[in-house]
């Protein structure tokens, strides 16, 4: 069972490594979008400081949604997803491993680059850590919840737009709490409450989402 999980993670990371352009686009999207705001709004430091958490979080959310299609679509087209469904390990575990690999490729780079992006907004240096921590807890939730949508819209024509409509509303709580944690700290109130809530959401999503994804995949492949 553990071997299957290791195998799936290693496989998806290897595939991502051989198809670097896919990985680069989502990260580049994040960098470009977050850089557009200071350019469009103008260099008014107070405004930028104020909008920074929200803008960075919304960009991370859009970027992670952009890469969701990749999660199952390719495997579906070449038939390997059928073989994954017929695997020896429970499908929920295999799906969790796929989401983990997806997050390592699409989510973790956002977490690492976010403090650098925050430089453009001139936010207080104590906020860098909170911003990165909130993304570290929040982006896996985005991947897990998004995976349910990706599995449900698998193989549908125009599935990309449908996926966005399905998943974006579900991202709202993560966005509010994630961006809120940074705002709370910048207001001097301490963001521990929000961060703990994010952690709770992560635990809940990690337990429930793989089961939902497994069920959705079984339906989509019929």
């Amino acid at each position: 069972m553990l071997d299957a999980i290791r195998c799936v993670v290693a496989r998806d990371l290897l595939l991502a490594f051989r198809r670097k352009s896919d990985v680069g686009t989502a990260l580049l999207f994040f960098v470009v979008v977050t850089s557009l705001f200071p350019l469009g709004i103008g260099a008014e430091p107070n405004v930028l400081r104020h909008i920074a958490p929200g803008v960075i979080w919304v960009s991370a959310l859009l970027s992670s949604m952009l890469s969701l299609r990749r999660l199952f679509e390719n495997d579906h087209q070449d038939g390997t997803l059928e073989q994954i469904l017929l695997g020896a390990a429970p499908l929920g575990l295999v799906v969790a491993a796929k989401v983990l690999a997806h997050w390592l490729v699409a989510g973790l780079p956002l977490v690492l680059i976010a403090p650098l992006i925050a430089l453009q907004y001139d936010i207080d240096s104590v906020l860098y850590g909170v911003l990165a921590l909130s993304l570290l807890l929040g982006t896996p939730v985005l991947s897990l919840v998004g995976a349910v949508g990706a599995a449900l819209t698998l193989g549908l024509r125009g599935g990309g737009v449908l996926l966005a409509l399905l998943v974006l509303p579900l991202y709202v709580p993560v966005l509010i709490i994630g961006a809120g944690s940074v705002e709370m700290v910048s207001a001097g109130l301490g963001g521990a409450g929000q961060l703990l809530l994010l952690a709770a959401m992560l635990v809940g999503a990690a337990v429930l989402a793989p089961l939902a994804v497994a069920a959705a995949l079984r339906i989509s492949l019929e």
Partner: protein
Amino acid sequence: MLEAVDLECARGGRILFRALSLALKPGDVVRIAGENGRGKTSLLRILCGLLAPTAGDVRWDGTRIATLREEYSRRLVYLGHAPAVKDELTAEENLAIACRLAGLPGADAASALEQFGVPKARAVGRMSQGQRRRAALARLVLSAGVPLWLLDEPLAALDVDAAALVESLVAAHATRGGMVVFTTHQEARLVPTRTVSLDA
């Protein structure tokens, strides 16, 4: 061992087949015959549990496969229309991963590919259709211990040598007490012990 009782399958509002029953015991090689669009692939997908029948049951050793799930998956190999190989990976990587996911040791992937004459270190994306099929079928060499083989058009896009190899693998599997269900349009090759026809 494998039992299908009163299967009915409807796709897109049209009934493909109904009241289809099938029982396989060790050593059976069954060919599913029928024109295009009669539901041969659907029947194979029902037998491996990817598709739920509209009515009826598939049972393995008397237990419904829907309740067995991966317990049942471990006892079968399904090779469908698509070769199920990743273009970016080499043939050896593909085969080793497929075996590990199926719970088989993938250590002998290289020798299995050699039997099928597939260059093991080349990315599958740079291979011809026939070579991809071979790369996928090489899994049969490593699946001797898996009792049930479900093969959808295993001979498609294969040349005479590779077809003969598949033939001998299927025959060897039957003699060691395995079960094979396959579809094919090349009747002269694989010889079944029994044929199930889906033509009305």
